[in-house]
Every structure is written in structure tokens, then in C-alpha cells.
């Protein structure tokens, strides 16, 4: 056995662990920031009890959820019920590995990174469907049906929007896409692909089941939707998956449309600065939308997806292809 590889392996493992911890902390504090921002918009205080300005609130929440009893109702399909939240979280979170945080920093520089992220996010729909099916509850079942229909139909619009970007860049590799943006006269694909950007943002909100497309978990209709039977840490896993989804979709939008880690100038010592700035801005957009808009109805949501977004993104794709051909 060649032991010379061991130190490199250990170092990689440590990097992974640090990154995972960082990602988890980001997601945990995203919940805190969301609560604080929405509270500000709604003229409340938000969390302010645990720690200074409530800063320790997410940690307290996680600890509380870990302590809670993991209730498994007797009527559920046990193995599927247990594994569904893991599917949702793993598929939701592993997409982070492909998003380039910096020129020299991307965990897995896959040639088809973009496709892989899309595939993973479709797979995470399985977690939702399986949890709804296994729960053996009518609310959960309705929620899962809504979620699967919604994720599948909005995936098409989203993929078509991203395909226009791929046409512009000529690569599925996210690093290449960023580089192509740097070389293009616009510096970011958001300017030539403004339609694709909007389609992507709308579908990303639908894909992550956020307001105004939060039908699968519509609190006032389906109580909690597909995870109504879950409790304790398994419930938290679904929550984590949702927030990971938000982060990944925002990261993807930042990478594909806003020029990724590139900024107008380098900031020495802070290599991730521009990427994080764009990421946070997009996340703020998510939260802002949540505080503003009411919820769509199921058929209206489907109508929006199939009758407006998909034709629009198709037309955009053809236009992009034609321009690519002629120019």
C-alpha cells in the first residue's frame, strides 16, 4: 500500500469537513437571517433571546430538534419513511460541491457540473415524494403530489433557461461558464440573457418550494404538506434540504448569470468576496419575495409553468442559438 498518498487524503478529508461545517453554519444562519429580515419587514423584532441579538438562535434550534423524540407513526412504511429525509438532504446538499467559489477553489471540477446539479435537484424530489407516500397521511400525500408535479414542470423551464447559458458559454463546466463570462463583452450573462435569468429565478423559487410557490407545504391548506408526520431531527433534515436548495440555486444563478466569483476588481485576502456578495444578494431576494407575495393556486402555478415559462424559455433558447449561429 502506498502510504505517500495518506497525508493528502487526510488533508482533503479535513478540508471537506471544514467546508461541510461552513455550509451547515451558513444554512443555519440563513434561517436566522431570514427570520430577522422578515421580522424587520413586518415590523417585529425577530429572534432576540438566545445570545446577543438572538445570534445563537439557530444553534439552540438545532439542539432542540436533536433532543426531540423522533416519532415514527405506526401506520408508516418504515424503511422508506426513515430514508426519505436523507435522500432529500443528500441530493439537495451535494450540489454545492460543483459550484466554483473561486478561480482555484472548486471541490469537484466536473465537466458536466451543471447537468449534475440539475440531476441532483431532480433526485431530491424523490425524497419529497417518498416521504409523502410513506407517511400514509392524506395531507402528506397531497403535498407530495403537488411537490412532484411542481418540481418536474419547473425543472423543464429551468433547464431550458440554463441551456441558453450553456450555448453562450459552450460548456457544461461551471468554471468554463464563469471564464466565458469574463471573456464576453458583457462580463456577465445576465445582460444578454435577461429573460433566461428571470425564468431561472422564478423556476428556482418553485424548485425549492418557496413562497409564492410553496404549495407542497402550504401551511394554511395542507398544514405542513409532505413532512407533516415528521418530527425531531428528521423534520430538521427537510428544512435543511430546503435551505440548501436555496443556497445552491442562488449559487447557480450567481455563477451562470452574474459572473460567479468575478468582480470589478480583486479584493486582496478575500477571494470569495464577490461570490458571497452575489450569493447573499440573491438569498435576500428569496426572503424579500417571501415577505411580500401571497401563494399561487395549484392550477394557476401549473398554468404559469407550462403556458408562460416553458414557451418563453424555448423561444429564448432558439433566439440564442440563432445569434450564436450568425455571430
Amino acid at each position: 500500500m502506498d502510504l505517500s498518498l495518506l497525508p493528502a487524503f487526510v488533508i482533503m478529508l479535513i478540508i471537506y469537513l471544514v467546508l461541510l461545517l461552513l455550509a451547515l453554519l451558513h444554512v443555519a444562519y440563513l434561517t436566522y437571517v431570514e427570520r430577522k429580515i422578515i421580522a424587520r419587514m413586518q415590523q417585529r423584532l425577530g429572534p432576540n433571546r438566545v445570545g446577543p441579538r438572538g445570534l445563537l438562535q439557530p444553534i439552540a434550534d438545532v439542539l432542540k430538534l436533536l433532543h426531540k423524540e423522533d416519532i415514527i407513526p405506526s401506520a408508516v412504511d418504515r424503511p422508506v419513511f426513515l430514508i426519505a429525509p436523507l435522500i432529500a438532504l443528500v441530493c439537495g446538499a451535494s450540489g454545492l460541491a460543483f459550484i466554483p467559489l473561486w478561480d482555484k477553489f472548486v471541490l469537484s471540477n466536473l465537466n458536466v457540473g451543471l447537468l449534475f446539479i440539475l440531476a441532483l435537484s431532480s433526485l431530491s424530489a424523490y425524497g419529497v415524494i417518498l416521504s409523502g407516500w410513506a407517511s400514509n397521511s392524506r395531507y402528506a400525500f397531497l403535498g407530495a403530489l403537488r411537490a412532484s408535479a411542481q418540481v418536474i414542470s419547473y425543472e423543464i423551464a429551468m433547464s431550458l433557461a440554463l441551456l441558453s447559458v450553456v450555448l453562450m458559454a459552450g460548456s457544461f463546466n461551471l468554471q468554463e461558464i464563469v471564464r466565458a463570462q469574463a471573456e464576453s463583452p458583457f462580463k456577465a450573462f445576465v445582460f444578454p440573457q435577461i429573460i433566461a435569468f428571470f425564468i431561472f429565478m422564478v423556476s428556482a423559487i418553485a424548485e425549492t418550494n418557496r413562497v409564492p410557490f410553496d404549495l407542497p407545504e402550504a401551511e394554511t391548506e395542507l398544514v405542513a404538506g409532505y413532512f407533516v408526520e415528521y418530527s425531531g431531527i428528521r423534520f430538521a433534515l427537510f428544512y435543511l434540504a430546503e435551505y440548501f436548495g436555496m443556497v445552491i440555486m442562488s449559487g447557480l444563478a450567481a455563477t451562470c448569470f452574474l459572473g460567479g466569483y468575478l468582480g470589478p476588481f480583486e479584493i486582496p485576502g478575500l477571494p470569495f468576496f464577490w461570490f458571497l456578495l452575489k450569493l447573499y444578494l440573491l438569498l435576500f431576494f428569496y426572503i424579500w419575495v417571501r415577505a411580500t407575495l401571497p401563494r399561487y393556486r395549484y392550477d394557476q402555478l401549473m398554468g404559469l409553468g407550462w403556458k408562460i415559462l416553458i414557451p418563453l424559455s424555448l423561444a429564448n433558447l432558439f433566439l440564442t442559438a440563432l445569434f450564436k449561429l450568425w455571430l
Partner: protein
Amino acid sequence: MSSPLIEITAKKNSSEAIVEPFYLNLGPQHPSTHGVLRLVLELDGETILRCDPVVGYLHRGVEKLAENLNYNQTIVLSDRLDYIASVANNIVFALAFEKLFNLKVPRRARLLRTIVGEMARISSHLLWLATHALDIGAMTVFLYCFRDRERLLNIFEKICGARLTHSYVRIGGVRLDFTVDIVEDLYKFTEEFPHLITEYETLIDVNRIWLKRTKDIAVVTPEEAINLGLTGPVLRGSGIPYDVRKFRPYDAYDEVEFEVPVGEKGDTYDRYRVRMIEMRQSNKIIRQCLDKLKETEGEPVLAEDSPDLLIPERVREPEPKPHPKRGFIFTGREVSVVPVGEAFASIESPKGELAVYVVSDGSNRPWRLRLRMPSFVHISAIPELTKGHMIADLIAIIGTLDVVLGDCDR
């Protein structure tokens, strides 16, 4: 077992069809059934084929309880009916009893009642807007409405000490006069409230999703509305300008000027508009009454011949080691000064027409008290309105009818 459940089980056993509808038991514990309403739904996908409301989870037997309490004590029961606007219930009880006793209420008391009645209307409509918006998904409107309802509740607290169950109205008048402080607060509130309504409207009135969710949902034609027995804003949303305040003015409504808004199509959006305009009109009424209060400065707020004999004369002194409840036991004289007869009174409560029919046998307790609560009638209209709509619409319909289960089950 309730009838819908029997029906479902019966269908399950006998049905030979392969296609079985999807049954969903919505409530009684559900975040948007506004209390403990239970709806048994027969679904085809998301579309509602049949909807069966089951009520009675909040039944407290108020009508029967009232037969064992004297007239003034029933006012306290009335608080618990429609607990969102308890003053409206107080008023209708007091009006019925005053008719029975042939009492003349002083003008100042009538003005005060009108003010608190309209305050209750605004606070009820604010709560309705909050929950209706929340049901449709607009969380921010919910909190804005609660913020402003809080101001009204604070004023109520200054008026009578209670925020929700006021018991402010007495037979023959009201319990206490307004202080200068309260009048100032109300002037300030009426000044600012129209701008606050505009604030809510900017959030939802031009919102495409809101319009999509409310326009053409649960359309009630005028004929249907009358056949279903709908009253209040729901009836006016269908275009029928029926308002008890205009048709049979009580209290000080004949002295004030206000408009009765009506809708055109009778859909959820029209009912929303009607209630928004009603809040503005209520604001106007409060304003006028406050101005008129100055003319009646120093007048009594309780009729001289009001049956204060029925108010506990004295309260037993606490004994050295009193039972915690002992100090409040009624020890007043039980006298029968009440004329034999019957009386009926109805008012325009925030939810609809609220009516009381009382029969007296001459004792100081009502022999029979019958209540006509709008929420009960409105809930019975849900099956008719939801036919062919989707689950999400059902939630909007419950919201637009503005039902309170304490009002329905009594």
C-alpha cells in the same frame, strides 16, 4: 358518529366502482378553519366534489345557560359568542332586553355604544383581513393588521379594562363614560386609520397573485345569497344594499351619515372590497359620534330606571380564609320587576345580521333566549360555494365568509 362519517364508511363497503374518491378530513384542528370547524371533503385530485361541514365542537350551551342567569349576567355570556367583536353581541342583548323592559337609553350612552360598536367592527374586519390574507399566503398583511388592531384593543382596555371580552354595554346604557384620554386616543386613531388601510391595499390590491386568487372565486348571485340566508358584507358583496344600521336604525345610527358599500359580481374580491370600504365608513361614524359626544357632555350613561336591581347589590365580604371564588358570589336581591312578554332585536354585527329573541315569564331570568348567529348560516353556505373549486379556494372561501366558530356553535 356524525352522518358524513357513516356515509363514507357505507360507501366504502358497498361501492363496487374501482374509482374511489379521495376523502380528506379538514379540521377540526387545522390552521385555517378559524377555530374548530371540521369539513369532510370528497376530492377528485385537488377539486372538491362535495364538502360537508361539521359544527358543534365549540358548543357551550349559551342559550340554555342564559335561562339560569339574570338579565345582566347574560351580557357576560354574550361576550363569548363572537369573541372577535364582543361589543356587538353585548349591544344586541342589551337592545332586546331594553325593548322588553321598555327602557329609554340616554343619548350619550347611545353614542358611546355606536362608537364601541364601530370599533368592534373595525377590529373584527382587521382580524378578518389578517387571517384572510394569511390563508392566501400574504404573511406581512397579517402582521400589519395585528399591529393596528392592537391599538384598538388598547383603547378598549382603557374603556372597560378588558381587551377581548368587554361586557361594556349594560341594559339601559353603558357601564362607564369615556375619559378625556380615551376620546383623544380615538381622535388620533381615526385620523391615522385611513392611511393604514391604504397601506394594506398597496400590499394586496394591486398584487396579481391576490387578484388571481380572489377574482371569480365563489361567486354568489343576489338570488343565491338571499336563498342561502347570507347577511352582512357577504350579502352586500353580491350587490344587495341590506344593512340593519340603515333599515332599522338602532343606537345612534340615525344621527350619523355613512354609506353602505355594495359589490358588483359577488366574488371573493368584491367581498374584500366591501369590507375595506366598510372599515373606512366605520372610521367616519366613530369620528361623527366623537364630535357629537361634546354636545352631551355631563349626561348620564345609564338610564335612570335601568334594572340595576339585577346588578349584584353588594358582594359578600371575603371571610378570613375565603374560598377563592367566594368573594364574587352574587348575593343581590332577586326581585321580579320584569314585565311578562317577548322582544326581538337585531343589529348589523361585523359578520352579518345578529339577532336575539327573548321571552320573559316575569322572573328576573329570561325564560327563553334564542340567538340568530350569522356564522352558522354562513357555514351552511360553504358546500354550495365550494362546489367545483379547489382546496386552496376552499381556504379562501372560509376566509371570505368570515366565520367565527364561537359565533356558530354558541
